[in-house]
Structure formats: structure tokens, C-alpha cells
């Protein structure tokens, strides 16, 4: 093997494995010493086995394989996320294009943006009276902001040169939007979409915990109440892996749409 390929192999696989190993050791050490209630890695695996090895099994409403739970969560996230993008992108365009709109709505957006999902969820419950739409409402609302702000940024960053081309050719507003602004802003928008998806996935856990809906977050909270702490760790790892996977997927899409 050449030196470069050894280095590449080290960077891609060996180093992350070493890092994971170190964390695993610290976890084992912690559970063996001061953290009595923290299940050890081995115990976690033993108790979680069934859920991992039969990932799509449905034994009861709140006793299902981990991937089945994940699937429920993903469906919920998708609904909220799609709503977030469908509202967020046009709002971002308006913010980027219209001074009037920006002046009117930018301040309120800046104020609503940092509000935690835990604060929105009760409001959603009040509004919709049912946990399912309340959860989707919360996901949509919380994950919308990166799409809004990045789209606005992208529209404002469209080089004046491109706009001059549109002006010299006298492109209509609609044509300028679809032929110039949209493609020019697309890379920024995808960054927004990617960040939004990350937040949507972050929010799902909070939403499911509070509403008790079946999903990874709901399962996590239920197992906490049932004192099966091993499953909390299983859920955390699952959430992390799925989030990582989603981010990578969006990263690929982002790269594909990068124009210049």
C-alpha cells in the first residue's frame, strides 16, 4: 500500500474508530465507578439487542423495533420539514428582494427565531388540540428559520452583474426570478435546507417526548419512565446516527446544486 492510501485509510476509518473506542472506554469506566445508574456498554447492548436485531418488529404500541420507531419519527419530521421549506423559501425570497418586507418582518423573525421548541409545543397543543399536528407545527416553525435567512442572504448576494444582464435584456420579473435569482440563490438555499433538516430532527425528540407519540423520542421518554435506562442510550445513538445520515445526504444534494 502506498503512503497516501495508508493515510487516507487512517483518516477515514481508523481514527474515527479510535475516537469511538476512547469514548466507549470512558463510558465503561464511568458506569463501573461513579455513575452507578449509567448502564455499561455491554449491558446496554444486551438489553437493546432485541430492538436492534429485530428493528422492524411491532410487539405493542410502545414496544417496537428501533428502526420502526425511527421510521415514525422520520415521517413526522418530513411533514414538518416540507411545510418549513414551502413557507420558508418564499418568505426568504421576499425578505431578500423587498426592502419594505425586510424592514417590516426581519425584526420579528429575529425575535421568534431563538424560541425553543419546548416553548412552541404547548402553543401548538392549544391551537390544534391534538399532539400529532402540534408536533408537526413545532417542527415546521423551529426548522423554518435557517431556510428563511439563508434564502434571503442568497437573494441579496446575487451579483449585480447578473441583475444587470436581466435589466439589459428586459427580463420580466417572473423570468428574472426563475432564470436569475433562483439559480443564483440556490447554493445558499441548500445550505439553509441542510441546517433546517438538522433542526427538524433535533426538534422531533422534544416534540415526541412531550406528546408521547410513538417514535424514537417518545420511546426514549417512555423507557426513562419505565426505568430501562439502556434504551435511552440506544435512542441517543440512533438519533445521532440518523441525524448524521440526513446531514450527509443533504450535503451531497448541496454539492450537486452548487453552481459556480
Amino acid at each position, binding site marked *: 500500500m502506498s503512503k497516501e492510501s495508508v493515510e487516507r485509510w487512517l483518516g477515514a476509518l481508523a481514527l474515527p474508530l479510535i475516537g469511538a473506542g476512547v469514548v466507549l472506554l470512558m463510558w465503561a469506566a464511568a458506569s463501573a465507578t461513579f455513575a452507578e445508574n449509567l448502564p455499561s456498554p455491554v449491558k446496554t447492548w444486551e438489553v437493546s439487542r432485541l430492538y436492534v436485531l429485530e428493528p422492524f418488529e411491532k410487539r405493542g404500541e410502545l414496544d417496537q423495533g428501533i428502526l420502526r420507531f425511527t421510521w415514525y419519527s422520520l415521517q413526522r419530521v418530513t411533514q414538518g420539514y416540507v411545510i418549513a421549506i414551502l413557507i420558508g423559501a418564499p418568505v426568504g425570497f421576499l425578505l431578500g428582494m423587498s426592502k419594505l418586507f425586510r424592514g417590516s418582518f426581519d425584526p420579528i423573525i429575529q425575535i421568534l427565531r431563538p424560541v425553543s421548541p419546548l416553548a412552541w409545543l404547548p402553543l401548538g397543543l392549544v391551537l390544534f388540540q391534538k399532539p400529532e399536528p402540534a408536533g408537526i407545527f413545532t417542527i415546521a416553525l423551529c426548522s423554518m428559520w435557517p431556510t428563511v435567512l439563508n434564502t434571503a442572504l442568497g437573494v441579496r448576494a446575487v451579483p449585480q*452583474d447578473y441583475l*444587470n*444582464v436581466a435589466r*439589459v*435584456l428586459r427580463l420580466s420579473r417572473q423570468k428574472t426570478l426563475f432564470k*436569475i435569482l433562483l*439559480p*443564483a440563490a440556490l447554493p445558499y438555499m441548500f445550505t439553509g435546507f441542510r441546517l433546517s433538516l438538522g433542526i427538524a430532527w433535533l426538534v422531533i425528540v422534544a416534540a415526541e417526548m412531550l406528546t408521547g407519540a410513538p417514535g424514537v423520542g417518545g420511546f426514549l421518554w417512555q423507557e426513562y419512565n419505565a426505568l430501562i435506562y439502556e434504551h435511552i442510550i440506544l435512542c441517543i445513538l440512533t438519533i445521532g446516527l440518523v441525524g448524521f445520515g440526513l446531514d450527509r445526504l443533504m450535503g451531497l444534494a448541496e454539492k450537486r446544486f452548487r*453552481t459556480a
Partner: protein
Amino acid sequence: MAILALHDVSKSYGSTHVLSQISLSVEAGEVVVIVGFSGAGKSTLISLLAGLDQPDSGRVSFRGKPVRAPGPERGVVFQNYSLLPWLTAFENVELAVEQVFSHWPKAKRLAQTERFIGMVGLEHARDRKPAQLSGGMRQRVALARALAADPEVLLMDEPLSALDALTRATLQDGLERIARTSGKTIVLVTNDVDEAILLADRIIPLSAGPAATLGPEFLISIPRPRERRALNHSPEFRRVRTQVVDYLLSTKRAPSAERAPLAAALSAITLEPST
């Protein structure tokens, strides 16, 4: 009647007075080249003629009517090409053709696009994105885009200044051919005096900024087609070159004591015959 005219036009950006009381009258079919230092306000001048910008005072008129906005009858070739990076060379030209000749049948529009891509010799690169083209090729696409829209006036903002010397010379010859054969009215700004003489019917120097203003015009009567190598030996070429350069240098602020030797050295170099 002049096809394009500036009457007593001034323009400032913030506290910077860029152009001061500029008057210019361009006749249909002539090639006017504005020569000036970098940063003298040449791009501003083109923006005003194109209608991309409005003067603070004075008037810009096209065929006697005031210019308030850009339009395809005044095609612009931008300094940095301004090609849309998500479209291929062909699509960039097609966008202009589609817009300007929207009443044409599709086949005719495609033929028009083909023709101008061919005219700048880019058939082989028609499906490439701007990022995959060299600087010279990009500028040729930009030129094809402007010409394919069949403008009455072609405004060119230092179209070749970003290119290396060889590519630049090749494209200058291409522009010379276009100026000679298309019959289009052309206003070109450049910082290259040789380029100006190669292309122009009339050269008008723009004095060094701030508050730049147009100097005396120089009519170039060297017969076309003008051949670069022959030009170097032409007495008229040398005479005009010296006069234009002298004028431009004379408009520079009086050099301070320590800068004087440098300015003198520079003018000596510039005036050295290039043979």
C-alpha cells in the same frame, strides 16, 4: 442625428465626483473608443449610456429620446463577462435571443443562437458551462450574447482587459472584424491605446479622475481592414499614439516632487516605439 448622446452629464458616487460635464455624440455606424486610466470612470460612462445608472445632472439620449432604463437595443458586453454560471455557453446566448426575439418561431431562434455561437468560433464548446471555459472563450460567449440580440448600439466595457496578452490580441482582431463587417454602432472603453487605434473611427480620451472629463477627439483614418503588424509601422499609428498618450499623461495631477522621475520614466517607456 446622433444615435446616442450625452449632454453635459455629471455623476458622483457619494462624495466621489466621477464624471464631470461630459458631452458626447455618437453617430450611427461609427466606432467610438473612449481611452482612459483605470478608475477614471470609464465603466460609469458605459453604465450611463446603457441606462443601468442615471446621471446626477445632464441628459443621456438614444435616438433623441431620453434613456431611463437599459434595453436590448443597447447591448452591453461587460468587463467581467457576466455569464450566468448555471447555463451553458449556448444557453447563455439563447436566453438573450429568446427574450429579444420572443415573437420568432423556436427553430429560428435556435438557428440565430447557433449562428452567433459559430461566429465567435465556439461550436465545440457550446455545451460547456462558463466555469469550463477559458477567459477568452467566456468573453467570446459574452460577445455572441450581445450580438445575437441584434442591438443597434454595442456598448463594451473594457471587454478584453482581463485577458492575457495573446488572447487579447486575438480577440482584438476579432473585434476589428466585427467593427468592420457588422456595421454596428460601437462604443468601447479601454485603457489600451493600441487597441483603441486598431478599432476606432474616433478616439476620445477620458481625463484622469476624479471629475473626469472627455478630451479632444482623434479621428483615425487608417484604412480598414487594419492589420496589427502593419499598424506598428504606420506613421499615423505612431503619431496618434503619441498624441493620445501625451494628452492622457497631461491630465494626471501634477506629480509631486518624489513621484516626478517615475512619471517621466513611465511616459518614456510608453512612448518608446514598439518595433
